[in-house]
């Protein structure tokens, strides 16, 4: 990234293939703007999101990580997002407990029809993370010196 530009956060968005990735596509075909620093990674289902991916993203310099999946009850695989919901609840709480601000992690349920919600969610998330500033914490949890 060029140095003279204002700092913008780096956001990784994990989207499930069936609902949220399609919702993101719909936001695109509807030309609904959201910041370019949101990068989407396609996963088959929200339950494919391994906490290690989130930690890795933070450690490699992401400032915020968001997971988007089908609304509870609408999972293509029937139950995946229910597991994801519990996993993320526990993980986010643990990260918060270790001092990683809660605002840097988020889960949103976005259906294939909710292009506008996808764009609005991303705008809001980028805003929240921008306010929190750069995330260095997970990169150096063990480097006190």
């Amino acid at each position, binding site marked *: *990234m060029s140095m003279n530009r204002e700092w913008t956060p780096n956001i990784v968005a994990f989207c499930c293939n069936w609902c949220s990735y399609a919702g993101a596509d719909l936001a695109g075909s509807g030309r609904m703007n959201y910041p370019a620093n949101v990068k*989407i990674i396609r996963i*088959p289902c929200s*339950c494919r*999101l391994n906490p290690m991916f989130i930690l890795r993203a933070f450690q490699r310099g992401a400032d915020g990580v968001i997971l988007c999946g089908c609304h509870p009850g609408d999972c293509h695989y*029937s139950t*995946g997002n229910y597991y994801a919901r519990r996993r993320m609840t526990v993980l986010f709480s643990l990260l918060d407990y270790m001092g990683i601000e809660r605002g840097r992690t988020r889960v949103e349920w976005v259906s294939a029809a909710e292009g506008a919600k996808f764009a609005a969610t991303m705008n809001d998330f980028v805003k929240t993370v921008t306010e929190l500033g750069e995330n260095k914490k997970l990169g150096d949890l063990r480097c006190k010196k």
Partner: protein
Amino acid sequence: MQKIGVFVCWCGSNIAATVDVKAVAEALKSEAGVVFSTDYQYMCSENGQAMIRQAIREHGLTGIVVCSCSPRMHEATFRKTAVSAGLNPYMVEIANIREQCSWIHKDMAEGTEKAIVLARAAVAKLHKNAPLTAGTSPVTKRALVIGGGIAGIQTALDVADAGFEVDIVEKAPTIGGRMAQLDKTFPTLDCSACILTPKMVEAAQHEKINIISYAELDSLSGFVGNFTATIRKKARYIDEDKCTGCGVCTEKCPSRKGLDDFNMKLNKRGAVYIPFAQAIPNVAVIDPEQCLKLRTGKCGLCQKVCSAKAVNFEQKDELIERQYGAIVVATGFKPIDASAFNEYAYNDSPDVVTSLEFERIMNAAGPTKGQLVRPSDREHPHEIVFIQCVGSRCTEDAEKGKPYCSKICCMYTAKHAMLVREKYPDVNVHVFYIDARTPGKNFDEFYRRAVEQYGVDYIKGMVGKVSVEGKKLHVQGSDLLNGEQVHINADMVVLATAIEPDPTARALGTMLTASMDTNDFFTEAHPKLRPVESPTAGVFLSGVAQGPKDIPETVAQAGAAAAKVIGLLCKNELTCNACVAHANEAACNGCSQCERVCPYGAISYEEREIRSPEFRGVRRIAVVNEAVCQGCGACTVTCPSAAMDLKGFTNSQIMSEVDAICR
């Protein structure tokens, strides 16, 4: 090391207007492993695809990244292109630089920068890709239909006519279901039995149909094309092959305390009984809860009078195991329990009945031989009040009831009102209704006939209270059109109770891993485009199990489900999903956690000889049935040792994408 080719699409100006495609192609050239990178106006065009094919051959590419529109649009296209040039289709990755880049950004520099990152992520992932092959699985050419009502019968007949074996499993002693209990059918008023019983007979006589009555599904394993079902055939204490259905035993049985389910418990029957005259199989059954012989060891009269020697008190439940390629759920409905609605005095007076009870009262084969009499004193009623929407259209947070419209009540109530008026012109009939819902061929005409020709008094409004006052039922309700509270002293009140899925449906849904809505109706794979399929492959939906519907709709859906079943059973084998989970046996602990979260039951365990640095010996290892796995990945995250991974979306593939994006 992979040899990767990158192909950046302009998509006319759709991408090129906000992304400097040439710069993207140029930037990617310096990525490790990229040996070729170019851009073109329309990659998906025949020329574009030819360009890809040529590059694959010329540069000996092992994988390609196409920077273009959403993979949901053209992933399949480019996979085919790759295959035609000799590549494995799973060596293709798409960087979505249209929907998720050019279309949402306005600034060229920003768009270009993001497109480069997305392309790099795709390249990074591709480095970890491996060729995948989708497996196949054979198809067992037999269908299982659960439920022997009109829905199940119709599906079975249609599938059997196409030449496939069908088993109908019916939990009652006879097939026929709810339709067998009805008197007349709307809007034609033809006799229900007259149109149903020939179908029952046809099913019974069809060489491809096997009716397993008085039986329920006990357990199920397997997957589309390869289900294994265990069916529990309950002991009926009568040898089905010997019983001639003569009915002598049913007359001689000294116990008369049983409530006749077929007649909605309006009359008593013996412990040995045949549900109704046209039952199929026309064989008696003994109720073990009621039978003196089975309870106390004394009696056995039926056995003595049976000339066919069919009575067998030693009979036990029988388990039948069978393979099926497809399963059809046709479990139907029951009316809700009206006892929660005592504001209508349902518990307080036998003269307050549900519509299905009324149906039996009106039926010539019913408990009153079709005579319209009050259940309390068998006297002829003069004033009948029908109340619609009892327990339908209630909000979730209301005290009781169902949130949906039960769909059939408006029409059957009009039918009841009309039949009463036709047979007994001296009886006044009032119908309290909220909305008269009559969409359907000849439905509104039918309802109007009830009003105009038969003089049925339709009152818009609901009843607030029915009180028992002596022999009369005092009905107090709203007449909204007149702005009055009306009071009617009625002799009978008929409640159009909501319908709900059969209580066995919930457990069945769990067994089939077929999803259900909050009301226990089975969910369709797509509400518009796949209305007769469950999201679980190989499971199909027929009749009210999927949602309230009337007979013509049920029969239509039953036929549609049959067509889907036939489509499946015609195939000799099925292609499976290639992106499936796979357990690394060296790292698998055999801890069963993955099995617990698998929605498809695709994971099982086997004892395997393992030779790894950490372990030598026989160990319990997870094994994924690739024909069943749908590739959601729930197991991969549950696995603490990362032994379970998902092909096409492996841990290292996704990690590489993360690294590339956060670089």
